[in-house]
């Protein structure tokens, strides 16, 4: 089958939530949806486009295929994992327009949160946690689980990485990092079922120079940077793009600063929370850059990082925030429902760049600003 696809390089048309895009053959539904962007894109907790073989496990990206292809327009009976299903020409996919999908996804969110500790207030991942976002966007407000949560001991799986197995959602991303970035994997999944856990056979065995990327790919706070633990909340820190000449990696990073102090170094993330690519290669960074270069003088500062507007980190009002793409009008086939989608659309407050004011904002600023913009 793979051979047949290679012979026909013509782009395939796929319709996702009433929006049609053209994608090259071999593209997955999820990546086609990412081309559209906005709410139409299914969430992905385990899929990571830069890690080969990842995906299919968390089941949050389930979508309904209403028509398999133009040649065979039968619907697929089950919901499919969009991250691992490739598109066919003329495929019709329903994501946010399908009640079945919404219900199944709420179910998956509930399952993922079932044994997940509610320790966000002390978790270093809070504020940039994909599970938080997922729970907020697709979950229910309460849990129906009335039993004790499953717990594990905290474990140092390497000199610089600490594992909180309680928080892990078993996305397997870190094992793919170890397989594909480091010379050999020394950690993996032990046990099975609900007692499956990530660990090493020899304690503190993870010391490969690229092992720190496991922290970046972890969607939750299970793998944490020991040099940053409990130093600060991410939304109080200032993300700044910087680079250095590194013999081992691309050297392009985000510094998370407080004042001039560099609290944390991470790889640069794209809008899907994945490591950015440079010239088609993922910009993984080495442990030297990540854990040892913690002085601003080690780096050439490029400027503030673009922060996604829906991120809590954007509350610091940094420059150049990205506004999420709005797709509702297209999804509703041209109708423009009067929905209160975003408080910032109707509020004047948002039009003011607080960071550009010389001092504290007063009501005068807002009045001036609103008259100016009109």
């Amino acid at each position, binding site marked *: 089958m793979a051979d047949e696809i290679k012979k026909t390089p013509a782009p395939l048309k796929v319709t996702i939530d009433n929006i049609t895009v053209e994608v090259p053959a071999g593209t997955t539904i999820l990546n086609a949806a990412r081309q559209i962007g906005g709410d139409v894109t299914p969430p992905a907790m385990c899929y990571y486009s830069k890690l080969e073989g990842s995906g299919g*496990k968390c089941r949050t990206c389930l979508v309904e295929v209403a028509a398999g292809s133009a040649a065979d327009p039968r619907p697929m009976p089950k*919901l499919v994992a969009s991250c691992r299903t490739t598109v066919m020409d003329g495929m019709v996919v329903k994501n946010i327009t399908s009640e079945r999908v919404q219900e199944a996804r709420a179910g*998956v969110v509930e399952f993922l949160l079932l044994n997940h500790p509610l320790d966000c207030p002390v978790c270093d991942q809070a504020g940039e946690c994909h599970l938080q976002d997922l729970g907020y966007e697709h979950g229910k407000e309460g849990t129906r*689980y009335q039993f004790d949560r*499953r717990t594990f001991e905290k474990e140092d799986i390497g000199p610089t990485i600490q594992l909180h197995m309680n928080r892990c959602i078993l996305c397997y991303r870190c094992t793919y990092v170890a397989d594909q970035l480091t010379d050999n994997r020394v950690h*993996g999944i032990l046990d*099975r*079922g609900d007692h499956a856990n990530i660990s090493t056979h020899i304690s503190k065995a993870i010391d490969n120079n690229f092992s720190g990327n496991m922290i970046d790919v972890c969607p939750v706070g299970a793998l944490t940077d020991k040099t940053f633990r409990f130093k600060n909340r991410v939304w109080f820190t200032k993300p700044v793009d910087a680079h250095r000449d590194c013999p081992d990696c691309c050297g392009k990073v985000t510094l998370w600063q407080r004042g001039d102090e560099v609290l944390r170094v991470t790889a640069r993330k794209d809008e899907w929370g994945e490591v950015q690519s440079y010239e088609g290669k993922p910009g993984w960074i080495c442990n030297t850059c990540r854990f040892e270069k913690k002085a601003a003088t080690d780096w050439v500062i490029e400027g503030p990082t673009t922060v996604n507007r829906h991120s809590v980190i954007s509350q610091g009002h940094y420059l150049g925030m990205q506004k999420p793409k709005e797709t509702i009008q297209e999804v509703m086939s041209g109708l423009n429902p009067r929905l209160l989608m975003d408080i910032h659309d109707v509020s004047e407050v948002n039009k003011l760049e607080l960071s550009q004011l010389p001092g504290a904002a007063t009501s005068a600023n807002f009045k001036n600003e609103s008259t100016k913009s009109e």
Partner: protein
Amino acid sequence: MGRKLLLEKAQVENIRSYEVYRKQGGYRSVEKALKTLSPDQVTEEVKKSGLRGRGGAGFPTGMKWSFLAKPTGVPRYLVVNADESEPGTFKDRYLMEFIPHLLIEGMITSSYALGSNRSYIYIRGEYAWITHILEQAIEEARQHGWLGKNILGSGFDCDIYVQRGAGAYICGEETALLESLEGKRGNPRIKPPFPAVKGLWGCPTVVNNVETIAALVPIINEGGEEYAKIGVGKSTGTKLISACGNINKPGVYEIDMTISVEEFIFSDEYCGGIPQGKKLKACIPGGSSVPILPANLLLKTAKGETRMMNYESLADGGFASGSMMGSGGFIVMDDSQCVVRHTYTLARFYRHESCGQCSPCREGTGWMEKILWNLETGKGRSSDIDLLWDIQRKIEGNTICPLGDAAAWPVAAAIRHFRDEFEWHVTHPEEAQKRNYGLAHYADPLLAPVA
């Protein structure tokens, strides 16, 4: 007395040894296939026979074989799934233990049809002694020229290897089995690609149940069309049923799919009725993961017809009032059994056997087990029953492999048919600790359907 094809010679003394097996007409099918038929003709015979997979899903074997990709220069594999771990199912064990050569014979013919020069038997870890039996049988076959290079001068090479699992139900799922066979953690793969395209070591692979492959022997010996005459409709041939539970004569029976469920349970030729004069309450007709049926729906379908022991009749009424043939693990429960307790036991099994790869199964199976334990021990609430229903619905169909479905179906069916018993456990928590709900109305004749 129904016709026997597989177990016909099972009682012959020392049939396990090659000499006796050969004297009883063994390996005739290999001679016939390799000398007179081409590989495609063998596949054609299987298609004509209407043989359906005996592992549980009942997928037509001939069709499965025809899906096998055949790129040049790439080896193809036949893998026999002997990881028989479904609670209540022990037919393959009987077959492999007593007539191992039947499996080997079927495997040689199948390997010839599929072009597999190296075929594997993946056997569950707990069947340690059967591994030895099979290896001995393979060695005997090799010594007599049925395995190895250029079998019977046909130019076809074939070798069979036995691989023991390490005790995981999930490794009976075909892609998890392949992962385990490759020496990896037995996690099911995400499909597509299907094993027929990318299976063992990335090569096209067919995974079949032991009984399916053994059925090749009578199919080739008698011809596909003759085989298809046995049975009814699309349920052709004979099926091994491993009967257990509250019956007088538990064991493995070969049926030709034309007998009724009632006859199977109560006739002396088969299960021999229920001991101590107790009444039939419920039955799981096809291994633990298929829906449980109360006595009244088991013996007669919702339409009032007699339910027969075959694929179609057992599935009559869908999941609303029917069940499945499954793997043939026939579990009978009398009126002293508690369905809540029983459902809890199954939920515990599935929680323990979930691989933990995908979230609905990993988290949902444990959750269901805990709720069922509460219900069983008198700590349940009536809302728990609805919650269970909702959980199973969110697991079913949303997982990577069918284990999620297998865990959800028994719970769903138990609530669907035995809701009264669950509610009684909630409303009479103390009484439920002392006695069982009993037969109640579960054997009462059903009301005639409203036209």
